[in-house]
Structures are given as structure tokens and as C-alpha cells.
């Protein structure tokens, strides 16, 4: 089945059985391996992408559900340059092994889009579906808080 979607701002078409997981479509035919698989059952959040601006687990969404919709992956967040969010993760220790980072960045992006000045508690809630085994989360919270500040100072633009 032919499916058309907007992927990281560009219109793309794939020909796949509609029940193929969005995660497999992204990592395979769509050529975007930045979205990771940690569990395959909606628990770890490493596969988080934005679907029409809302964070979803790409392991639980089928490609068929994406017809006519907009998908954003980690590759789409920092094109063409590192934005403040990505840079803050580098500068403030938000990424260690990095396997959770794509999903974390997507969840953080969704948060900052709706809450430009989140509290630490709101940050923790927004990333509660993204497991990280390396950092203890403190520096991820710090990174997101700092990115929010930079984005506010830059006038809200990413």
C-alpha cells in the first residue's frame, strides 16, 4: 500500500503493508536510523517521534496510521544546525551513551513547544515515558531547563 506522509518537513511516499510499525519504516525504507528500539512494547520511549506534533512511540504506531500526517524524528530536530535543545544536551551532560537521547529530545521538544518555561517537575513528567539508564536524569532535566531559557531569550524561536 502506498502511504504518503510529511517526514521532517518533506513529503515522502512509501510502499509498505499498512501494519508495518512506523519504527521499522523509519529505520528501514525511510533511511532514518536515529529513532531507536529499546523494548518494542511502548515502555522505554527510545522510539519516540512526533506525530502531528504529539509524541508517540513509533513501535506502537503502524505506518498506515501516518497517511497524510506529519512525522518528526531526531534527524528533523537539528537540521541543518544544532538547536539550543540539542546543544544543551551536549553541554550539560544530558547524553551519555546516547541511546535514549533521540527519544528524550523529541519529548523535550514537545514539552517546550507547549510550555516555554516549564518547572523541573513538568520536565520530569514530560520525559517520564523515556527511560535512561545512564544519567540519573538530573542532567537531562538541567539540559532541558537551560534550553528553555535560551529559547525564551532568543524570542521563542528554536
Amino acid at each position, binding site marked *: 500500500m502506498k502511504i504518503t506522509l510529511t517526514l521532517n518537513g518533506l513529503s515522502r511516499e512509501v510502499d509498505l503493508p499498512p501494519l508495518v510499525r512506523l519504527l521499522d519504516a523509519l529505520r528501514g525504507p525511510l533511511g532514518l536510523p536515529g529513532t531507536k528500539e529499546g523494548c*518494542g*512494547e511502548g515502555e522505554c520511549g527510545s522510539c519516540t517521534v512526533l506525530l502531528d506534533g504529539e509524541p508517540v512511540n513509533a513501535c506502537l504506531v503502524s505506518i498506515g496510521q501516518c497517511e497524510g500526517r506529519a512525522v518528526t524524528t531526531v534527524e528533523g530536530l537539528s537540521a541543518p544546525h544544532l538547536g539550543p535543545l*540539542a546543544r544543551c544536551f*551536549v553541554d550539560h551532560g544530558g547524553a551519555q*551513551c*546516547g541511546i*535514549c537521547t533521540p527519544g528524550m529530545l523529541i519529548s523535550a521538544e514537545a514539552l517546550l513547544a507547549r510550555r516555554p518555561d516549564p518547572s523541573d517537575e513538568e520536565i520530569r513528567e514530560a520525559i517520564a515515558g523515556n*527511560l535512561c539508564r545512564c544519567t540519573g536524569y538530573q542532567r537531562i532535566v538541567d539540559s532541558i531547563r537551560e534550553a528553555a531559557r535560551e529559547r525564551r531569550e532568543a524570542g521563542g524561536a528554536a
Partner: protein
Amino acid sequence: MTTAAQNASSARPPFIGTNVPRTDGASKVTGRAAYVDDLPREPGELFGATVRSPVPRARLRGITLDPAFDWSDVTVVRASDLAVNEVQCITAEQPILAADQIRHAYEPVVLLACADKRKLAQAVRAVKLDLEPLTPILDPEQSLAKVDVIWGEDNVHKRFSITKGRADLPDPAASAAAIEAAIASSEVVVRGRYTTHHQEQLYIEPQGVIARWDEKGVHVTGSLQCPYYVHKALVHGFDLAADRVHVTQAVTGGGFGGKEEYPSVIALHAALLAQKSGKPVRMIYDRKEDIEATTKRHPAICEIVSGCDRDGTLRALSIRILMDGGAYMTLTPVVLSRGALHAAGVYRWDDVRIDAVAVATNTPPNGAFRGFGAPQTIWAIERHLDRVAQELGRDPMDLKAQNMLREGDTTATGQTLRGSVGVAECLEKALTASGYHDKRKAPPAVRGRVARGIGASVFMHGAGFTGSGEKHLKGRVAVDLLPGGRLRIRTASTDIGQGTETVFRQIAADATGLHLADIDFAVPSTSYVPDSGPTVASRTVMVVGGIVERAAREVAARVRAEQETSGGDFAAAADRLLTKEREVTALVQYEHPGWVTWDDSTYKGDAYPVYGYACDVAEVEVDLDTLEVTVTGFWSATDVGKAIHPVMCKGQIEGGSLQAIGWALWEDVVWKNGLIQNPRMTNYIIPTALDAPPMHVDLVEAPYAYGPGGGAKGVGELPMDGGAPAIAAAVEHATGLFARDLPLLPERLLELQTNRKG
């Protein structure tokens, strides 16, 4: 290409002690970093899968491939196909595939490969194992009692004893009698039994490798910590010359010990399938298989009897440690050793006897996990001293402070501490930052159904390999001069998230006066990096970082000598030198400080050249109805010698502490008849951002004279040691319930409450 001169305009050394952006950061935040399953499919590539035993112990009578299934495009490997059926670790007692005996559930029996993933899954179900189940031994105490013999002659993987003072007698019986007498003559005697459970590493990237063969031999790329461990296993398993085995680390999504020895197994499996099929084979575990089949933290039982004076001076200590090694020995002797060497805690004792034993059970082999045996014994000794404090009516941290090791004191192995002992400062800082004393003195705070409490622990962790380990290992690093006056570090020490490649660049830059951007870090591949030893044991920065420092200095000195004779800047001199000599490389080998002495037969001497120290404080809320525990604040002051990169250093401490919190409160591998009941992320619970407390980390720097960058010590494992006992002490403060067994699940606390009332 940029040159040293061009980079000169940006930031200058020193880089050590500053938070430079991590050099692999940009690739990780853009999704460009290629983990093993992100590597492009190779032409003809197959997927690999493993058929595993569904029972913990059995005789394997036969294997049947369902004749109704189309096997034409499926590669099948079983034990009978193997010339060598041994996984080379410390010894080679573990088979690559079970041949006639099943010794643990999920033991690999048959390997399959197929280009079609769906068909591969069907093929796994079309293999029938003919098994005659036997009664498994699942309990280490039964194994020790030799209810049945399942490993070697007596089920014992390894034994160690450590003796000191009056117990230091060659005859074990006399030594045991002496320690008993020493304790009996003490003014206050306290006994206790403390247990800890399995823990799954749960790196977020599951285990995976890709293997292929060509005219150069076998190539394995994977998610792994120790390329040379895998190299050694492949050399042994395929009986190949060392230069025909090529092991490369892909970007690795966390390890924590879980990718120390296990990758040898999956690498052998994929390489066998690749050899038989003649095609590249990609083998990536799914989460369930990863939790079920791979190694976990060793469960341990510690029985402690101690004697002290009424004024709190600790005198005599007797500890019996029993660890569950699982079905094969693998790294268990080393884990047991580290456990025993940390069992006396961070305290002075006159007389000590520690007896440690690890036995086999019919469960998957337990293995390396951050802390490597120490968190288990530190849990026991810290809880025990909390008991002693109760007995004496003292605050536990006052009692601990009174007995902590100082410079010049001797440890249980008779090691005299020669400095870099920052423990007193750690204690002071953590207790002050957390307001421990005031909160402790206030009466138990109960508001509605919530009780608050605060608790602490203090501990140390040896950095580097035990005893003469580093001396035997002779870790090596190469530093090459590149055109334009740049350097390249070649080492087998891997970056698995902890920041190795950034820290090594900082060390090399400051050793040479070059800019960070002038230092390259070669991808760890056994084909072109020397064996620096494994990425384990809190040794990477302290031991290997020290070799990087020396090698970088050596290369820079040669360039500077060239500069002095013929002039020009560093880059020009480097290019001239390269033209003259073609290759300018320093290959440097680790040198253990000369004063380190260790006797493996008596377990005496300098167990580690130096120790890291820390004090952890946890504040908790306990729901008095549900007995659920929430950690509301966590403080750690940690003596790291010298923080090369403070942000990454704190990141290690925070991440390790949260693993300790998870182990203490939620993480529990549930077993039934030798099978794991919760092999999924939905039911093996690790902490989320909402479960994790705010963390406050203070770095203390008591420099180690032989550490790189001005005195760095290892920090990787230390933060795993103190979280659990600090939380238990806080729960005790809040509720009066004294836990001896981990994890502190509500049902466990309920049991304690019921027993107290009864």
C-alpha cells in the same frame, strides 16, 4: 584538514578540570551516531536467532527439525557442528552451545539464520528439543550443602579467605577459633544476616553484533565494552591466529558490566552462523531474550558477627559471604574477590576473618555489573554498622566517622593507606549539604500517612584491577603523530557513554599543550588498537588515562626536539619529522607504582593502589498505608582524586546512584522454577524521571599521586555502592523498620512491620 596552528585561535589548555563539550555529543544528539543495529545491511546479510532451553536442568536427548518446515534457506548450527565448544573467559568451562546437558534455563542449544526475519521466528518454533528434565538446584545454600552436584566436584566456583590480626593464622580452623575468641572477648557483640538479589543491567540498547568472514578471517562489530575479550574468545573458539580475528566496537548504548563478558557469547554465535552460511549475520537480541539470557548481578548472603568496645571502637569482624555464580563460573571468581575485598567497609578493624565462597546454581551465569560484588558486601557492612549503632544508642554516622580509615591506617588485607584518603571530607560535605544532623535529631516527621526519614552511608571502592592484576595485564596505548601536528590515540578502552574519548583527549591535550581538536580518537578495533585491557574495574581514566598521558607526552617531546634543532612551529616540525621517519608513534605500557605489593596466595597487601571514597545521603518518604518508599532527595560527596571533566564525572555519580536506588527499591528479578517471570520493561521496573530524586553531587579531590591529569582516581563503580544502605537507613529513620534484605518492596516492609507487632 585543520592544523594545530589553525586551532590555536580557539580555547587553549588546560582542558583538564573544564567541561568541554563531549566529543561524541553532536553525533548523539542528531541521531547520526551508528549503534550496531543502525549499521547498513550488508549484501546477502542474514538475521541470526537462538533456540534456548525452556527448563533449568535436563539431559538433552536430541534435537529434531520439524520435517514439515522448509529449511532450504535456513542455516542451522548445533553443538555437533562445533570443533571447539568452549567460551574462553577466565577458563573455558562454558559451552558455546549445550551438547548433552542443560544447566540453566535459556541456555543456547541451536543457532539459526535466515534472510527473512518472519521465517526465522517460525524456524525457532520448528526446532524441537528432546529434554529429560532433572531436578534443578536453584538455591545457593542447597548448592553449598551439595544436595546434588551440578558443577565440578563440589559446586564451588571459588573460595577466598582474608585474615588480619589475631585471626591471621595459616590453619583455617585455628584462625576461625581465634576470630571467635576475639569477638567473644569484646564488650559489645552484634550479629546479622544480610541478603541482596539479582539485578539486570538493563542498558537501553540490547546486546547485538554483526559477524562476517572474508580472506582476512572473521570480523565482528558489536555493542561491547572489551574488544579484546571478544577477540580472545573468537581466537579460541575458531582456533585462529590472533591476526585473523577483527573485533570492532560500534557506538555502544550502555554496558554497566553487562557488555563485559557476555558479548563473547553472542559474537561466537553470530560468527558460527556466518561461517556456516558464508554470509554476514546480524544478531540483535530483543528485550525479553536480553533479560532472560544475559548476565546479572550476583545475589549474595552475608553473615556478620562483630565485636566492639562500649565507646564504639570497632575491634573484631567475622564475615561469611555466599554468592550465587549461576550455572557457569565465567567471571565469578573476580566478582567474589572484589566482594570480599570490600566487605570490611571503610573501617579500621584489629582482627578480621572473611570467608567468601561462590557456588553454582541452575540459573543463567551471573556476571559483571557495576560494582562487581562490592555493592552486595557494602550493603551488608553498612547495615551491620547501623545495627551496632542501634545497640550502642549512637547515631550511625557518628559511629562510622569514629572508625573510618585514615591515612596510615591498615585495611583488612594489611594495606597501609598512603594518602588520597578523602573520606572524612566526603562525610562532612554530604552530611552538611543534606542537613543530615538536624533532620536526624528532629523527632520522626509524620504528616498524615507519610513518614519522612533521612539516612546515610559511607564507603570506598578500589580503583583498577585487584592486586597484581594490572601488573600482569600490562595495558598498552599507542599515540601516533599525524600530519599538521595532530595526534591520534589508539586504545582498546571503549566509550560506552561514560565519556572516555572526551576525557582521553583532555588528558592528551594538556600533556602536550595541543588543542582538544588536534587529538583524534581511533575507533576501538583489535586490528589497529593495542590491548589496553578491558573497560572495567574503574580503571579506564586512572590506569589507561595515565598511559595516554605518557604516550602523548613522548610524541610531543619528539616534535619539540625537532622544533629545537630545525625551528618552525609545532605543525611544521611534525610534518618534517613525519617525512623523515614516516611513522612517529609512542606505544607505551602501564607501569604499576613500584611500592604496590600483593600476595595472591595469602590475599595480603595492596589490594588496590588507591581507593575512591564517598558518602551518600538519602531522604525518603514512606507511605504508611502502602509502605511505598519515595526518595525525595539524594546527596553524594565523592572523592575522585581529580575530576578531569566535572560534568561527566558528576554524571557518572548520578547515574550510578540511580541504579543503586533502583536496586534498593524496585528492581527485582522474579523467579519461578528457574524461569524469569518478569523479563520485560513493563514488569522489570527501573526508575523513571519521576521516580528519580533531585541529585546533589559534591566532588572532593584528594589527588592520587600516580593518577593522570593531576591525580584522577576511578569513579565508575563507586556510586553503585552506597545508595541502597543509605535508603534503608532513611526508611529505618522514618518507620523504625530495620531491613536486612533487598529490595525494600512494600511487601517486605509489611513483613517487617507484622513481625515487629507480633
